[in-house]
Each structure stands twice: as C-alpha cells, then as structure tokens.
C-alpha cells in the first residue's frame, strides 16, 4: 500500500478507464416468490458495443433489462458500471449514472408533444415555468443530429407512426446523455420500412461510438444485422455468447428449435 505512489482515487480511475466493459451484470439472480426468473446470469457489454439479447418469451430478457436499468433490484448479484460496482436505487438513479432503457411500451405520453416527451421528467425550466422554446430548439437539434425525420416536433406523439415513436424514444435516451442504452424489442410490431429506419438509427449511434447498447430482439436476421455480439437467454440462464460474425441465423434457429423439441418431449413424457 505505502509503496504505491499513486493515490487510491487515481488508481480507481485508471481501473475504470482500463475496464473494457461499459456494463457488467455478475451472478444475477431474480426470484418472484417461488419462481426463479433469472439464475446466475453473467452478461457483459463492451464499450461502444451493440449486444443482442435473444431468447424465448418468458426467458427473462425483460426482467434482466429491468434490473440493469434500476426498475427493480436483483435478488442477488451485482452490476459493474465502468469498472465500479453500482447499486441502482431507482430508474432516476440509473439515468443519472448514464443507463437508460427504452421499454416496449416506449413510455411516451400520447397527449404530449414530441418535445415535451423528449424532455419528460427532465424538463428545462426558467424559474418555475417550462422553457418550451429551449426544449423545442434542443429537440430539433438532437433529432437532426441523430438523423430522425418527423413532420413536426409540435405534434402530439399519438400522431406519429410506430417507427417514428420508437425513434423518438431512442432519441430521448441518447439525448439525455445515456452511455448505456437498453432497448426492449425496438423492432417489435414494425414493418420492414420502419424497422430499417430503427436499424439505421442504431448503426448510426454505433458509428458515433458514444453509446453501448443492449437490444432485446426476436428477429435473428435483424439482430445479426446490427449487433456485434449475440447472447441467448434460456430459462433464466445465458446459454450462448458469440460474436455475430461467428454465428448465423441457421445456428440460432437450430438452438431454438432444439429447445422446442425438448419442451415437446417433456410434455409428452408427463402426459
């Protein structure tokens, strides 16, 4: 200790900088009563990486995401953000630390304008009143920078298409200085054209290199298209971890079909 000339503070900073992972989930367990939703999950997200999280319905993808964004605590296990262990107290707390999630329902308020949604719960105020002009200006800048084209930031988001709404939700997270972005099925229920717009957006974000992304997906083709690496979650455990270039839609399909076969066999056995 005494021989080390570097003060502790610096040592920590160096360790943080040296850590190649933006976020790590270590030995995460989550139980809801008698149900074990997650079992000893280890997941790591490299800096600037886009990680695809695949898995069957009910495999625990959303549960894991909600733990990583501070919406709910794990039963046990820990999160490491930039090399330092963090205990997320709330969604707000996670957001302060730079982790932001885009939920499946997008958490957009239909009745509010695009720019009010962009600044939801972190509104710019002048005194006690909303500074709408500043929020409009910054919203327009952000959307232009990320490359999202919508008719007007004054319209209620109810009037936007599914893809535009998803884009707004992603843009909101990015513009709130999120360094780790957790996307829960950003392409769900979206046509090819809309999905292409979101994939394009994620690719752009990757190119800009400012954010690391975990993305839950169902469509393997789309996931391989945009993700650097794929993790597969089955029955609350991560059973597969490969770089996208080392796997294929075929391989992923085979794994899942195998899972179905096993489930089917189990049913027949118990019947």
């Amino acid at each position, binding site marked *: 200790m005494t021989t080390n000339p570097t003060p502790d503070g610096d040592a920590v900073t160096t360790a943080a900088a040296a850590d190649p992972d933006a976020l790590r989930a270590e030995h995460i367990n989550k139980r809801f009563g008698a149900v074990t939703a997650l079992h000893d999950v280890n997941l790591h997200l490299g800096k600037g990486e886009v990680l695809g999280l695949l898995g069957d319905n009910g495999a625990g993808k959303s549960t894991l995401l909600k733990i990583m964004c501070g919406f709910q605590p794990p039963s046990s296990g820990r999160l490491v953000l930039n090399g330092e262990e963090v205990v997320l107290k709330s*969604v707000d707390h996670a957001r302060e630390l730079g982790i932001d999630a885009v939920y499946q*329902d997008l958490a957009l308020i239909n009745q509010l304008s695009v720019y009010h949604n962009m600044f939801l*719960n972190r509104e710019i105020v002048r005194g006690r009143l909303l500074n*709408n002009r500043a929020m409009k200006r910054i919203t327009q800048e952000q959307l232009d920078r990320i490359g999202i084209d919508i008719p007007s930031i004054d*319209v209620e988001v109810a009037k936007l298409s599914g893809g535009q709404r998803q884009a707004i939700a992603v843009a909101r997270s990015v513009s709130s200085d999120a360094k780790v972005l957790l996307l829960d099925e950003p392409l769900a229920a979206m046509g090819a054209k809309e999905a292409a717009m979101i994939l394009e957006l994620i690719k752009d974000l990757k190119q800009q290199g400012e954010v690391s992304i975990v993305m839950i997906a169902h469509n393997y083709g789309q996931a391989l298209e945009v993700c650097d690496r794929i993790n597969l979650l089955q029955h609350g455990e991560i059973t597969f971890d490969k770089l996208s270039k080392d796997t294929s839609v075929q391989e992923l399909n085979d794994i899942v079909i195998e899972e179905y076969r096993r489930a089917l066999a189990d049913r027949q056995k118990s019947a």
Partner: protein
Amino acid sequence: MSETAEQHAEVGGQPPAKPPASGTGNVLRRAGAVFIRQREATILVVTVALLVYFSVASSSFLTASNISNLLSGYAAPIILLAIGEVLLLICGEIDLSVGFVLTFSPFLMHYLIDYYSVPVIPAILLCLLFGVIVGWVNAFLTVTVGLPSFITTLGTGFILYGLVLTTSNAYPATIPVKAASYAKIFGTQSGFGQWSPIIWGVVLVIIFQIVLTRTRYGLHTIATGGNLLGARESGINVARVKYTAFMITGFMGALAGLQTAFYDNTIDPSAGQYTPMFFAVTAAVIGGTAMLGGTGTIIGAFLGAIVLATLQDGLSILGISANPLDIIFGAAIIIAMIANVRLARLRAAGRD
C-alpha cells in the same frame, strides 16, 4: 405526397415572423384553423351565444347585481371545485366528496371561532388545511391503499356529511360575529364583496391554467393520466402527482365552502353536497375535459361553469321554471362529449 408536404409546412415548417402574403382570406382561414384546434373553442362559442341571448331576451340580465349573482353566486363555487376535478380527471381520478368538504368547512370555522375561541385568521386557515387533509386522506386511500377513487370519495363524502349533521344537529348556524368583517374577502350580496367570489375564481383559474400547461407538475399530471406506466418508467412520481391533485381539490372545496357561507350569510347543512360537485364535473366535461385521463383544460371548465351558471340565472330571470333545467344540463353533457370525441378524432386525423 404533396399533401404530406403541405401539412408539414403548415404544422411547423414556417417561421412565424413571415405571415403568408396571400391576403386576408388566408389569414382568416388560418386563424379559424388555430381557433378550432383549441379545446375551448366550442364552449367559448356557446358561452358567448348564451350571454348574448339572455341580454337581448331580458333587460335585467345585464345589470351589475344580476351579473354578480350569476358569476359569484352560481359560477364561483363550481369554478373552484372544477379546478380540482379537472386536475383529478386528467390524472384519471375523481372526487365525489369535495361537495361535502364545501358543506363542512364553514361549520368548522363556526366551531373553531365560537366554541374553541380560535382567532378568525387561524380558524380560516385551519378550515383550508382541513380541506387539504381530506384530500390527503382521499389520496391515501386511493393511491396508497389502492381503492378506486370513486369508492374512496363516495365513502369520505358520506362520512363528512354525517359529521356535519351530527355536529350541527342538522341546524343552520350563523356566521361567527368575529368573522363578519372578513365577509368582504370571501363574498357578500352587495358592495365590493359581491365580486369577491368570482375574483377568487378567475385568479385561481389563471394560476392553475398556467400550472397545468406551463409547469412540470402540469406536464406530469397529463403524463400520469395519459400513460401511468410510462410516466412511472420515466421516473415521474405518479403518487405525488395524484396526492397533490386530491389535496388541491380538497383545498378548493374548503375555500368554496367559506365563500358560499359568507355569500349566503348563513352556514347551512343543506349547502354543497353532491350538486356543486356534479356541476363541477359537468363544467369540466362540457369544457373539453375527457373522462379518460390525459387531457383537460381548466379554462374550458371555467367557461363550462359560466355556461351552467348562465342557464340557471338566465332562465330564472326570464321566469321560466327551473324544473326542465336538468334536462338541458343532461343533454349538454352528452352533446359536449360527442362533440369532444368528434373534434378529437378530427384533430387526430390531422384535418383540423
């Protein structure tokens, strides 16, 4: 394709500094479009039409004493309660008990001053605090315990009324002598005091319209009612939003109770109850507040209250029996709701 482009330009593309050069027709058309886009447009037209009709129909309508009676006697209590109900309806709740807060609060003032020798100003402040506490209890039972607010406030309303009847033996009381000099502030039948209730009403409407449309709390209220889960996921403290709305409503009930007592110069157990609360909800609905949560306007509710008051006051001045009034109110609620739904659909279709 060209349609979308045109819409684009119309909605947000044009800088407002440069008006279109195509003459007054276009300006009028655009003004019309902007006007109809306002939720309050329909109700404003109805309000003006009614006021014009009654002023023409009766020479005694447009007199200071009648107008003050209309605004302060009929409209003001509805306006105050409606401010609270609009906030609650926006965040997906309702308060059926607030009319009984109105009934109870002047009795409480009477008890505090006449039985417990509390000085007037603290007594009045305690009455207002009492309203806030009732709101808190309503919120606690609704938000924290998890009962539907319809049930919660049905229950607390009964309890409050029972308290009024038990403590007063169902007899009216007179305004405490010591408080009489404060009547001007809350409302009297003549002099400056006859305008006090409506001044309170207008000031509070302006304040809360600003709160609703220009503050974080207002935005969060809309978010809470528009998408409860989404609001929560965004980190909005939806419980606090609802607690606040209930407490504001309770406060308004207590203030309206004091106003009514001073204005009528009596503390009456038959004042208040369900009628002003239902009028307030009616005012909110015909003013453009949907019952579905997420949308609402306090200015609209204000105009709605003026409409209800004008009908009550105007028909009585014309000597028409008040009996069919409820038929008109009922029809007005339904027509207003249909109009709102239609307009909302038009707006959604972008054809406004």
